[in-house]
Structure formats: C-alpha cells, structure tokens
C-alpha cells in the first residue's frame, strides 16, 4: 500500500478498512441479537471485535472461499460465548453469506449458540464449556509441528474464563512443549456474567502469572488494531516459548450504553436500544468511510 500499511491482506489494505471490519462485526452482532427481547452475548462479542478484525482481516493466512485450505492459520475461540462475533467475522470475510447470520440460534441453523466445527465453515473446534480452548490450540500446534508446518495457532480467551483450572494445565503444557507457533490472546474486559472479575474471583497478577508459567507476555490496547497487530508480530518473533497478548478491552465496546455494563454479558436489547446501537455503529462506519475517502 502507498501508505506503507504493512499488514495488507486481501481486501483489507489499510487501518481504516480493518476498523470498518470491526464496526461491521459489531453491527452484525447487534443485528443477530435484535430488538425483540431475545438475549445474546453482546458485551464479550463487542470487546473482541477489534481483535477478530485484526486476525481475520490482516494477520491470519486463510482463504474464506476455501475454509479447509491446508495452509491456513487456525483460530480457536475458547470464549465460545463470543460465537456471534466469530460468525460475523467469518461472514464479513466471506466464509458464508451475511444473510446466514439471520438464522443464528434458530432450529436447524448452521450457526449454533456456541461454535460447532461440523456445522459452520471456518470453525476449527467446538467450544462453549469454558477453559478448554487453550488445550485444543496446543493440540493443533503439536499436530502442525509434526507436519513440519509453520502455520500459526491463535486462541482467544476471556478474563473470566481463566478461573478454569484447565487453562493453567494447558498453559504449563504450552511452555513444556515450547509451542512458539501458538499465540493466546486474553480479552481482558474486566467483567464476567455477574459483575467485575476482580470482585468475583481474583486472577491477578496476570502478567506475572503467565510469565511464571513460561510464556512471553505482551500487553496491548485491544481496541487499537495497529497495537494488536504489532503485538501479534512480536509474538511471531518470539521463539522457544508461547506468547500471550493481554489485551485491555471494554465490555460492550462501541455501543455506549452497553460499555462496561455486566448486564449486557448475555442481555437483550429494547427496540430503542437496538435502534440506538445500530445508529451509533452506522455513525462510526460513516466516519471511517469519510476518513478513508480523505486518505485517498
């Protein structure tokens, strides 16, 4: 790209294009939940939207038109309740038509309430029972190592999720096996289903914990896509140990009335809230489009 954007990947050739992807992921998330009283995991889906945009729009090697492309990098959404954000990222990057998103959580849909590898193209492994994704990611990384492949594995975890003991079994295993092809990303939005993580069950100090488990720790603003990509590049450059990006995020990011509100972990939207959320995200998309036009 003329502006020197080093993460250009397919249709996403600029920071603005990735920011628009993130805004569209959030917009899809809101549409999937709707305004008719149905519940959905809004908060934790919006907190990871920029991370997903960085991965699916720029960082990962993958072919949406060929979900089983053998050279693809792998993504495990260990926080499976962010399924709707994952579905939005998959649809927006071309794994399946956006119209499919309307069927989410309906009987017979390819889009289940939690990720299902057999039903949804692009989903590598089922998640939903928290705390298991990092182990799965380890297994994928081991399989790729046996194959002599340089492919990467990414695993997105929630900060409430890491109270699960299996995460720490897996964390020890990642460093035991020196899985430097694995990058974990912690979506540290600070809230779990019933309130602040720190008040529910303390897991700090996180950087020290992960370091003592043998991980290379990188901290980043999880809503600054450039910072996320720089962190992921640093992970690539780290050899002999797994890396974790501890991404500071805001639950409900991008929808002002939902930001930092635990009730939107798995909440419903009133008609008014639904309209306001879409309006805010459309405004954001308009700004980004205008900025992109000025940039050109």
């Amino acid at each position: 790209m003329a502006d020197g954007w080093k993460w250009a990947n397919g249709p996403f050739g600029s920071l603005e294009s990735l920011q628009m992807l993130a805004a569209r992921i959030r917009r899809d998330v809101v549409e999937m939940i709707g305004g008719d009283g149905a519940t959905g995991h809004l908060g934790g889906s919006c907190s990871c939207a920029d991370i997903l945009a960085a991965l699916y729009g720029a960082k990962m090697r993958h072919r949406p038109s060929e979900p089983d492309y053998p050279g693809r990098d792998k993504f495990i959404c260990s926080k499976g309740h962010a399924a709707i954000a994952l579905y939005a990222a998959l649809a927006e990057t071309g794994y399946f038509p956006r119209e499919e998103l309307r069927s989410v959580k309906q009987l017979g849909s390819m889009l289940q309430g939690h990720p299902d590898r057999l039903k949804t193209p692009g989903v590598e492994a089922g998640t939903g029972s928290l705390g298991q994704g990092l182990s799965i990611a380890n297994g994928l990384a081991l399989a790729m190592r046996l194959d002599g492949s340089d492919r990467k594995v990414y695993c997105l975890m929630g900060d409430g999720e890491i109270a699960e003991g299996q995460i720490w079994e897996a964390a020890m295993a990642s460093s035991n096996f020196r899985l430097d092809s694995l990058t974990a990303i912690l979506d540290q939005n600070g809230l779990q289903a019933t309130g602040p993580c720190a008040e529910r069950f303390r897991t700090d100090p996180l950087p020290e914990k992960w370091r003592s488990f043998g991980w290379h720790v990188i901290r980043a603003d999880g809503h600054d896509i450039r910072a996320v990509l720089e962190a992921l590049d640093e992970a690539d450059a780290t050899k002999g140990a797994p890396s974790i990006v501890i991404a500071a995020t805001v639950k409900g990011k991008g929808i002002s009335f939902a930001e930092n509100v635990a009730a939107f972990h798995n909440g419903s939207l009133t008609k008014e809230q639904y309209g306001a959320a879409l309006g805010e995200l459309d405004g954001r998309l308009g700004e980004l489009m205008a900025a992109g036009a000025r940039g050109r």
Partner: protein
Amino acid sequence: MAKTQSNQRAAYGEELVALGRENPNVVVLEADLGKSTMSCLFQEAFPDRYFEMGIAEQNMMSTAAGLAAGGKIAFAGTFAVFAFGRAYDQIRQTISIGELNVKICGSSAGLSDFGDGATHQAIEDVAVMSAIPNMTVFTPCDATEARQAVRAAAALQGPAYIRVCRNPVTDCVGADSPFEPGKCRALRKGGDVALFAHGAMVGAAMDAADALEGAGVSARVIGMPTMKPFDYAGVARLCEGMKAVVTAEEHTFIGGLASAVALALRGSGVPMDYAAIGDQFGQSAGGAAELMAFYGLTAGDIKAKVLALLR
C-alpha cells in the same frame, strides 16, 4: 484343555505400535500412566508422536481433540475412572460434539484394579460413555479382541472408547476370527439358553456354559465387544426360542449390558436375568477373583441365574 490367559494392556500397547508403523498420523497421549496402560511401548518406538501430558487428564483429552482437529488419530489413555470421569466434559463437549478422531483407552476398568478401591474402579464407564452421542464403545473380552478393537477404533471416523482390563483374561476369541464392530460375536453354540457378556465376564460365561452342559443345559455364549452402537437386532435374533437369557458384565446393572439386552428383548417374553454390580461402588480386596466373587461376578453366579430362570 486348560484355558490360556493373556493381558489386554500389553495387547493395547503392542497394537498401538503396529498401527504407528502403518500410519504416521497415529499419535498417543498419556497422563503419567503409560507403564500401566502399556502405551510406553509406543513411546519407545515413536518418541516424536508420543506426548506425556503430566497428571492432567482434562488437558490431555482436549489436546487430543486439537491433534485430531489437526488431522491426527489421537489415542489418549489413562485409567478408565480418570478417562470417562475426570475428563467427561472434555470428551463430551469438544471430542464428541465435534466427532473428532480421539480414541480413548479406559485402562484398568471395572473392578480390575482390585487393590486401589472404589476411587480407581470404573463400574459405570460403559453407561456414561454409551450415553454420549457420536461415541463408539468397545468392550473387548480378551487380548485378541482388544487388538481388534484398537484397530477398529483407528479405522472409524469419530471418537471411540476402549475398555481394557488390568489383569490377565481368558483367551476366548481366535486370532483369525473376524471382528465386526457393532455386531454380536457368537462364541459358543447352544440350544437352550443364551449368555451375553463383555470384557472379562466373557471368560466367566464360557466357564458357566461348560458347567451348565454338565447339568444338561445347552448354553450359547455371545460376546458383546461393541456396547455402542449396540446390536439390538442381533441380540433379539440370538434370543429367539431361548428358554432363558442371562447377561454378565463387570459393571453396574444400570445403563450397561443388562439394560441393553432387556431393551432388545422387550415384548419377546423370553425370561431374563443378569449378573452385574448392584447400585454400589467397589472396594479394595486382596485379589481380583475375591472381588469378583463378592459382587456376584463368577461363572457360578451366572450358572445359578440360569438354573433359577429354568426352574
């Protein structure tokens, strides 16, 4: 002729090595019990494809899922209690819903770890594993059948559970006789009564049939090496015209062979009884035979159940 015995665990380890030689995609995971399950044989032969996961069965099972999602055929072994119990959620959520190629070896199953007591005796594993959709459950009766089950598990697409006994078991199956996954395995002909069994209880059922012959009763013996999918039609067919049917399993009567045969027989009017563990845990004992006798799992118990039905 004296009956010979063999060890299923050795057979498991040896067959893994044979599979590993044939297929570079076969990998093995273990949680510090490789010297008990005998997967250590695979470790010696293929150290790069053997993963010692430490004493962390849940992580082992999900890692096996990841290896399978990455194209491998992953055998994950540990004691049966820790496989089906400690790692149940991992087996259900990722492996089974995702139909991943993870083959779980539940070793030292049933009461066979006689000394270690209730915490180490898997008496409900067949029921629990059978209840999971997409899961195949193999319950081999001897070393030969254990080898065949390992091979069948590797060949099928999706998850499988293989139940293995700690102690030597009576050889019941000819090495060259074919193994049909999902089918009854007729082992002895007989015209009066039918005995169904799996695992170590097949040997006991064969002994019971010998004893019944002496009492003038002709008993057929049918092994059930696949408990899921269960061969309901085959069982019903083999029970036609029988005066009595008795099942035998080293497992709780709830959700195991007794339950499945009772379902197969529904409406037939054929009298049926079972030799199985009651609704209770196991306990320590000085030997396997002593424990089996305490829980009513001997050839004599099977014979007595048959004679009671014929009375």
